[in-house]
């Protein structure tokens, strides 16, 4: 009998295998400065931490927005919305998320709070575009004496100038327990430390460095698409009809390939109309992305005789300077759906070229998406050249990690870790 019991015990243990790691730590290299951790951080390690500490009122998903805080949202007018709150949502310290917290979040995005009740918040958006866009930017957080309080799966354990440590609030066996954001002076340093095994994660990898990870044991390269794209913005200095003809003549695939320094193109390209004659078009670009200079030159070449001067713009002043250019090659958000209205609506938050198209504004106010698309075809304001790719290097023990559609690490709490 005793022998049978021992066999049974041994069998049980053998079937159980190794227990999942309870204290798996993901050490992610980030380029300094680290930035201040908070709901509005938009760069550096602080922005990565934000993905794990805070959650937006609505998260863009391929099938539509999902919200932990809102049961639903209802349009009351072109810019007026009522947000119905989901009861029972709490901050990481256990205190409930109140209507006031939601109101603070939407206010931080420039919306006006018209009224609040314990179960609803009525707001007026800055534009007539879908409110999901603003909700995606509106992060729920509460300022406390010790720092920011969020609702994410992680909380700040410690913060130093060169290191931020986040710990999972509710233990989850087989998942990442802690995330350490480690400041590095350069991407090269971060990458070298990754290869040496001092780090086991690096976000926002570029393609070239990803090449070096080929065959490195213990690491995997994870790919996803960023919510941003590289676009050629058409200046309002050009008449609508000229903008339409120019936009139609731009060989997007060819320029995208040139921007990526890749050969073009795997598929035959459709014949394009000729660029309308006229004066040379000035092209400017702010140096945000490595693809921009080549994209700008490729655009000029595509414009043929109308391709004019190509100028790199200073990052601090490019918005003001761009008024002097006919085309500006710059990044723009393409997700969540409707976000383009922030660029194209008269007075829109990102409408840096000063575009103004009353017909588009009217279609937007009416919520008529088809009319908006038709108007943008008639009088285009930008041409998307390439969708940006997201690359991250992660510990190979993380099983099938998926990068977020919005925040790159927003899906990290779900990632499973192999024993």
């Amino acid at each position: 009998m005793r022998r049978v019991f021992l066999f049974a015990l041994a069998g049980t243990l053998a079937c159980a295998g190794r227990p999942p790691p309870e204290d798996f730590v993901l050490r992610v290299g980030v380029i300094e400065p680290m930035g201040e951790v908070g709901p509005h951080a938009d760069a550096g390690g602080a922005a990565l931490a934000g993905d794990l500490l805070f959650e937006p009122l609505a998260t863009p998903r391929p099938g539509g927005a999902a919200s932990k805080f809102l049961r639903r949202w209802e349009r009351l007018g072109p810019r007026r919305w009522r947000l119905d709150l989901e009861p029972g949502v709490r901050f990481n310290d256990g205190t409930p998320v109140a209507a006031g917290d939601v109101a603070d979040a939407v206010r931080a995005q420039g919306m006006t709070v018209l009224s609040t009740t314990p179960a609803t918040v009525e707001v007026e958006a800055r534009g007539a575009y879908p409110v999901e866009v603003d909700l995606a930017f509106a992060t729920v957080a509460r300022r406390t004496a010790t720092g920011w309080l969020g609702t994410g799966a992680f909380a700040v354990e410690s913060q130093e100038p060169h290191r931020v440590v986040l710990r999972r609030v509710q233990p989850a066996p087989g998942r990442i327990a802690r995330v350490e954001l480690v400041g590095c002076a350069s991407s090269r340093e971060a990458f070298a430390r990754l290869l040496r095994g001092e780090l086991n994660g690096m976000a926002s990898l570029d393609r070239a460095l990803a090449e070096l990870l080929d065959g490195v044991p213990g690491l995997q390269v994870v790919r996803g698409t960023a919510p941003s794209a590289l676009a050629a913005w058409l200046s309002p200095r050009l008449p609508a009809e000229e903008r339409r003809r120019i936009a139609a003549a731009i060989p997007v695939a060819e320029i995208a390939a040139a921007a990526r320094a890749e050969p073009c193109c795997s598929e035959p390209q459709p014949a394009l109309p000729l660029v309308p004659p006229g004066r040379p078009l000035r092209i400017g670009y702010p140096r945000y992305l490595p693809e921009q200079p080549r994209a700008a030159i490729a655009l000029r070449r595509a414009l043929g005789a109308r391709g004019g001067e190509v100028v790199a713009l200073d990052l601090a002043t490019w918005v003001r300077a761009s008024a002097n250019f006919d085309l500006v090659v710059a990044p723009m958000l393409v997700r969540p759906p409707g976000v383009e209205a922030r660029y194209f609506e008269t007075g829109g938050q990102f409408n840096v070229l000063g575009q103004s198209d009353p017909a588009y504004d009217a279609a937007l106010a009416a919520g008529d998406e088809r009319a908006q698309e038709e108007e943008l075809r008639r009088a285009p304001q930008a041409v998307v050249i390439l969708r940006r790719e997201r690359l991250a290097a992660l510990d190979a023990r993380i099983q099938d990690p998926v990068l977020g559609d919005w925040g790159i690490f927003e899906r990290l709490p779900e990632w499973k870790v192999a024993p």
Partner: protein
Amino acid sequence: MNRGRMVARLTVLVALAGVLPVLGVGAIAVESLRRRSESAARETLRAVAVQAAARIGAYVSDQREALRAVAAAAGTGPDAGRRLEDAVLDAPGLGHAALVGPETPAAALPRTLDAAAVAQARAGSEVASEIYLADDDTPAVDACVPSRGRPGWAVCAQLDLLELWRFVQRIHVGETGYALAFDRKGRIIASGAGALRAAILTGDPVPEGEAARGASRNPGAAPTRYRGPLGEEVLAGWAALPDSGWTVVVEQSADEALRAARTVQWVLLAISLAALALSVAVGVRQSRKVLAELEVDERWRTAGRIAAGITHDLGHRVAILQQTAGMAATGEAAFLPRIRDNLQSEVATLRKFVADFADLSRDVKVVDRLPLDLDAFAESVRRTALPHAEKMGVLLEVAPSGAGAWTAGDRYLLERAALNLVSNAVEASPRGATVRLEVAAGDGTVELAVVDRGAGIPSGRLPSIFDAFASTKRTGAHVGLGLPNVKRIVDAHGGRVAVRSTEGEGSTFRITLPRAEPPAPA
């Protein structure tokens, strides 16, 4: 020697005779195979390295050719700068392409080429920098080519060598083989081994760096077997790119590279062991069979010898008894003394027959090994044999060792053996001769020799003198069992018996026994 030991000995002989040559030849073949395999593996690695170096060299040449083409496309017109930028779009491997002339500020010159080098290019010679990591952390070389249509000008660009990484990383030899590339200073610039890639970015030295520096001048002299970066023994093949001074080494763990040879080694070992096992099995089987046949044959021969001896000896006895019976049948009183003597003599002879046969049938087992002083023992034997010797008119003498010749044994059995030798010596000696019992003690052994000055033993008989039924005395009182019994008894004591004899001069039988410590005084 019992039958089992004989079988074992025969089996070992058969096995060694059969397998040792196989093992010897196999060992030579295995060593030869190992050397050839290692040599072939090194040659393969060298060939891969040479091929890789050639492709890397071709890629760099292509990049420089692309730069020349771009320079040509730029032309000499006022829009040369724009044409240059447009042309570069079709040469993805070129970055930061620029027309460089006399007025170009130093800040606009290529990052790793100084003004002198650029001036050289403007004067008509192509120049290139050492490999370095560009701002995007990828490997690059700065190069300048003269502008054909614009004297005093050059076109400079950064040659993207990301393909170098890709190419080196794609080289796999077996499961563990990889390639590394070094610049002329021994700094690693591309690595197929993930563990070394950090050194590309940091510039940290790697173990092969020193060898790489030497290999850039003479790849044939570079080491081809050494401890690899992960601590394992590796085989290596080197190749150099003469123009750039770069070297490529392809490494593979010796363990894997020589796996095939080792497999053959194991197969040969297994075959050898199988042959050994087969030889042992066949040896055992055949030895048993042969020994069984020999045994049967020997039994028949022994039976024949016994029958011959008995026929001869008992026939003689029967004849005497018949003659005695004839004398008794006459009823003559005068025959009575003769009849009595005959009967006494024949009964004694037949008793000896019976005793000898009894000895033959009894196993010699030394049950009680007790300390025995050979000096005293010899004297005891002399006294026992003295009546027989006196009857034969022979003197008996003892020459003791005088130093205490102790052994351990069964006194009864040893006495029977010694008496047998003394009896033979007395019977072989002429009247008036002396038989000596000589005792000696040596290192670890003691000795009792029985020396006579009789007729001696023919040399032809000596080799079989201790075999049963081999006696040729055929006096009617011997069936040839005495000396075999002596040998059996001495063997059972862990000793040995030997004979030295010269015809006409006499014989010496020497019993040698293990020496023992004298008993402690009571």
